[in-house]
């Protein structure tokens, strides 16, 4: 009995979300085809980004809001790949390579910073994201076309300096990964499985799984559990932490490329802003904490978080009969549950600390 209670308590966030999602689906009464297609789309789009958060959590850095930097690297690489006339799979591979290089550099720098802010990594990485956003804007609004040469004039503002607020991927990188291998199911083949992104996500899961079996992965775990004992045991704590941040940033960069090729347009100055918060929210919803996160947390989180986002507007609409109140209802539910998740983790951490003290 106590066991069941413990399991329920430790999974309270995903359980609450399942209840919410199921009731919202029943109330919303939306076409089931639409729901299935949307959930599959969201899994292909967002899982990679959410998975990129796992390594820093295990290495004790908490939730890395700094994946925004990785997303910027991914976008920047795509701008240049398009400018160089690249398209199709080649364009995408070039984007990934370039994004990796930029992300390694950015990840290294943010790793250095986070090592100076041990214990306050989450808030530091969040503020770092805001700071980087300013640099990003300066770079793409004033340097592109003036200091940095850019030949595709249609992507620039009319006076030749600065990128336009929308970059169209249509005909260049749009759906490149999705279209390689599509499995059609259901009525009229409405439900489409984009196999390549899904395979990439599975490969990433395997990579993370095996990474934690290697020496480096074990070091990360050790550092995550206790930095000081690890230091004494001869692990180069700072180096391990920097590697964790670099890996996370690089994965986020590739994740953003997968996300954007699916969306099809880049909102130059805003596409990356949403990445950090929503990925972290999804991971928390999946039952992860700031100190413990698994691949399953990520996958379940993506499914639950996005299901609620898909059905809540219609559910709110049906419940209140007014579209506007439906929208307010959705916002309220979505963000209230994120706040609830964070509060629950706070409580749990307090409890486990009390238990440890008692021991």
């Amino acid at each position, binding site marked *: 009995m106590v066991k069941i209670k413990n399991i329920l308590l430790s999974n309270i966030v995903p359980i609450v979300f399942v209840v919410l999602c199921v009731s919202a689906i029943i109330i919303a009464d939306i076409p089931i085809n639409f729901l299935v297609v949307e959930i599959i789309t969201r899994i292909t789009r967002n899982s990679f980004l959410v998975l990129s958060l796992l390594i820093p959590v295990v290495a004790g850095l908490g939730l890395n809001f700094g994946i925004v930097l990785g997303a910027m690297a991914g976008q920047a690489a795509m701008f240049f790949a398009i400018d160089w006339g690249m398209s199709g799979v080649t364009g995408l591979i070039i984007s990934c390579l370039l994004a990796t290089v930029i992300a390694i550099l950015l990840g290294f720098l943010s790793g250095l910073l986070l090592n100076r802010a041990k214990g306050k990594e989450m808030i530091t990485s969040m503020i770092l994201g805001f700071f980087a956003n300013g640099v990003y804007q300066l770079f793409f609004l004033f340097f592109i076309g003036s200091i940095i040469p850019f030949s595709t004039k249609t992507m620039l503002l009319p006076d030749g300096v600065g990128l336009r607020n929308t970059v169209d991927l249509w005909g260049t990188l749009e759906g490149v990964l999705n279209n390689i291998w599509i499995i059609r199911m259901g009525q009229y083949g409405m439900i489409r499985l984009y196999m390549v992104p899904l395979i990439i996500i599975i490969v990433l899961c395997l990579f993370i799984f095996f990474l934690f079996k290697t020496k480096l992965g074990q070091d990360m775990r050790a550092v995550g559990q206790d930095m000081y004992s690890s230091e004494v045991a001869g692990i180069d704590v700072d180096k391990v932490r920097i590697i964790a941040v670099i890996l996370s940033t690089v994965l986020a960069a590739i994740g953003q490329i997968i996300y954007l090729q699916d*969306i*099809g*347009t880049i909102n130059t100055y805003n*596409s990356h*802003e949403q990445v950090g*918060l929503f990925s972290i929210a999804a991971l928390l919803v999946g039952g992860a904490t700031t100190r413990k996160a698994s691949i399953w947390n990520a996958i379940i989180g993506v499914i639950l978080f996005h299901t609620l986002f898909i059905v809540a507007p*219609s559910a709110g609409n049906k419940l209140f009969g007014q*579209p506007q109140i439906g929208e307010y209802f959705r916002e309220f539910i979505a963000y209230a549950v994120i706040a609830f998740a964070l509060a629950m983790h706070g409580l749990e951490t307090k409890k486990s600390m009390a238990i440890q003290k008692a021991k």
Partner: protein
Amino acid sequence: MKKGLVFLMLITLFVSLAYASLGFKIGVVTGTVSQGEDEYRGAENVIKKYGSDIIHVIYPDNFMQEQETTIARIVELAYDPSVKAIVICQAVPGTVAAIRKVKEFRPDIVFVAGTPHEDPPIVERVADVSFNTDDERRGITIIDLAHKMGAKTFIHYSFPRHLSMELIARRKDLMEQRCKELGIQFVSVSAPDPMGEQGITGSQQFILEDVPRQLAKYGKDTAFFSTNCAMQEPLITAILKHGGIFPEQCCPSPTHGYPGALGIAIPEDKKGDFNYILKAINEKIVEGGGAGRFATWPVPTNMLFVEAGVEVAIKLVNGEIKSADMDAIKAVFDEVASQKVKGVGITFNRFSDKGNFYLVIADSVIFGVTEF
């Protein structure tokens, strides 16, 4: 028996007339009132007219961060086979992606986009018809109007953050040039940025103090214009008190700045009744001695984009007009606008030569001169 039949037929006729049934449905996508009241009220008006043939959905309040939700809301509409057209106003980021996703499996759906936030050339390629206010050409029309109202000097209030926006900067250049042509003195005044450290109150205070200063310097025949929404209300208040000319707000509409500055409370049942609102403003302006010195557009463009957009969509679905036929679309706009306020003239221009992206300018009404 015959009487009964006639009665039955009359009843059927009445029921079918109560809602002009379309035989198909139209999705209308707008924001909440906190993001933009005009388009929301526009959607309410078309629901009043077409009843359950209109499906009204809302994009998120923070649409910049939640593009995926916007896309999903629009795509969801397309799963209803009876939906034949979707009208989106304002066309926030995510609209282009959503239209493409829908066209993949429902190429028959007609898309009308109002006030697009994404890059116009891209929106023009994907939407069947798009509308926006012709903000650049307003650089000329505003000065022409000020000239007509007797302005000798034109004061342009703005600040660096706004002037770094391409459209605002280009409009200012056009205004300056037009002023030179008409012999008006153009003065650019830097006001405090409402997003700056003094906040909105600081910038409003500045306007209240600066208008009498400028009037003392340049005389009563000075026209004022500000690029910022928050400055419209103090600007109207100050000009009505001290003199001067106010040709147009940054976003021209009777509901923008005027009701607040003149202390007009619009009763619940008169919301969206522009004849009433214009009359009320006119009374207060004439009472305050500002006849012939204040003007605006009689109908807010976003409301017009939703209501006329729905009519355009119906005609496109029924094959009555073609999306490239500017005159036919303008005729629909004229009809919808004149149903709201009699005799509103509208000018149409194309964004690019062969595209279906239309730029709209409405004729101004001058309070104390135009008959209401």
